[in-house]
């Protein structure tokens, strides 16, 4: 008899088991939600990563080993952050504009499980893109990478900071138009005005200084350090700056997640 009574009660909405099953459900939800967009996302990844490696190769007349290393490690970083920082906020801005945003938050799952699912999905899209950029660089320029174990924390921290930054940007700014605008501007900042795919010495002094404090140059620097030998300098500082950004983005994301109307 007691067994039947227990079965009549609703499932308990707490504990690790509930969180894990919510996480799985949200992962499936987001995958299904994005199924039509996924081919497009993969295309954007390929174009931005591989396209950057090959396209700038066409424009630069005498490609040196050093420049090729910069381009290809830069392409890796771009592949890692483009979905999290640019596509993610745009998707959420569209949800806000079309009115399905509040519905997502009303789902009976812990909000943190939804964000964990988003980070996972992002990683699973970004890492193939990163490998594609590496393979393109090896095939096109015959560059020799010197991969160390530091690749795990470097890629992990880059991916996490990028995704959380995009998350904070998308959820923290109430107006979807502004989110769209900022993410468009960020494309320019990441591709052009941050020394991600070229040496920081190429920038004018003041812009180089600004980039020391923005997250994108440190991302490139730590990833470059883990994949190559001798071209990344001052890596400790980059890890520090990047960690501060990661903490900042998590705090904002957490605050946004807890907020109720």
């Amino acid at each position, binding site marked *: 008899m007691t067994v039947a009574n227990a079965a009549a009660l609703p499932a308990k909405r707490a504990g690790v088991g509930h969180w894990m099953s919510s996480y799985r459900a949200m992962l499936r939800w987001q995958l299904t939600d994005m199924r039509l967009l996924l081919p497009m996302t993969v295309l954007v990844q390929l174009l931005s990563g591989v396209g950057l490696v090959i396209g700038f190769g066409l424009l630069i007349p005498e490609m040196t080993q050093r420049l090729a290393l910069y381009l290809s490690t830069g392409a890796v970083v771009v592949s890692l952050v483009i979905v999290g920082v640019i596509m993610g906020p745009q998707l959420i801005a569209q949800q806000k504009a079309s009115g399905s945003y509040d519905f997502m938050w009303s789902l009976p799952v812990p909000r943190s499980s939804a964000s964990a699912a988003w980070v996972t999905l992002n990683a699973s899209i970004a890492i193939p893109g990163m490998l594609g950029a590496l393979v393109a660089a090896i095939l096109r320029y015959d560059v020799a990478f010197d991969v160390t174990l530091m690749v795990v924390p470097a890629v992990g921290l880059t991916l996490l900071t990028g995704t959380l930054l995009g998350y904070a940007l998308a959820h923290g700014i109430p107006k979807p138009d502004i989110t769209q605008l900022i993410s468009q501007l960020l494309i320019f900042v990441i591709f*052009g005005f941050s020394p991600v795919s070229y040496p920081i010495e190429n920038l004018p002094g003041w812009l180089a200084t600004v980039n020391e404090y923005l997250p994108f140059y440190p991302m490139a620097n730590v990833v470059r350090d883990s994949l190559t030998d001798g071209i990344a300098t001052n890596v400790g500082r980059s890890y520090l700056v990047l960690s501060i950004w990661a903490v900042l983005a998590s705090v904002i994301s957490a605050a946004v997640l807890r907020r109720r109307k």
Partner: protein
Amino acid sequence: MIARPHTPVVRSGISYWVDSYRTMVRFELINLRTFLAVALVIQVMTGAGMAYLYGFYMGDMPVTAQLFIVTGIPALALVPIGLVMVPGSIMLHKIRDTYDFIWSLPVPRMTSAAATFTVFTGLALPGTLIALLVADVYYDVTLQWSWLFVPAVLLTSLMATSVGFAVAHAIPEPRYTNLLTNIVMFMAILFAPIVVPIAQFPEWWASVHRVLPFYHMAQVIRDSLSDGLVESAGASWAMLSVWTVVAWLLAGWVVGRRK
């Protein structure tokens, strides 16, 4: 005394056409007023921003390479207007369902097309000039201005606007137009011989660009701004004219079509 019945205006003849054209230019200007401001900003950012950006990527460059970049910037600044903003404005009409309304206006349809060409060709000029001046200040090169600069920019702008217009009208689904304009931007920035010599490209890709308009846009403008970089721009003038005329024929066919 019977009052003479009110006679409607005769809807034909040159003066009617000119009159409709003037009305449509005004209509386009008012219709696009906020869009035009954004367009100017985007154009200057693409043109001048890319001038800086190429420099960051390439580091120290010989003077010739710098001159190639500076003289390529006007063509690069014209791509977003003609091949992205023009299709974008037509796309917006389709998405907002105001497309059929425009066609229902009591003016010859060609005046509407001509008004679009005029407004966007004119709009492209200040942004192009600003982008060129910004690039010129940043790089340490000396330009050899010739009077050909004016017709070169006008033809390039007219060609881009006409192609953008014709293609946007010809493709029924606005989302495909959107995808296409993104690809065009990507092509122009990374994969086209606009800011570098065409000799740098693999042979097969260079021959593709001898047919596509990007290379020719850059050539006619470069020829008017420098000495010795362009051997002969005659073929490029011809190619741009061919693209313009083909775009007009396509536009004429699409615009004349009835549902």
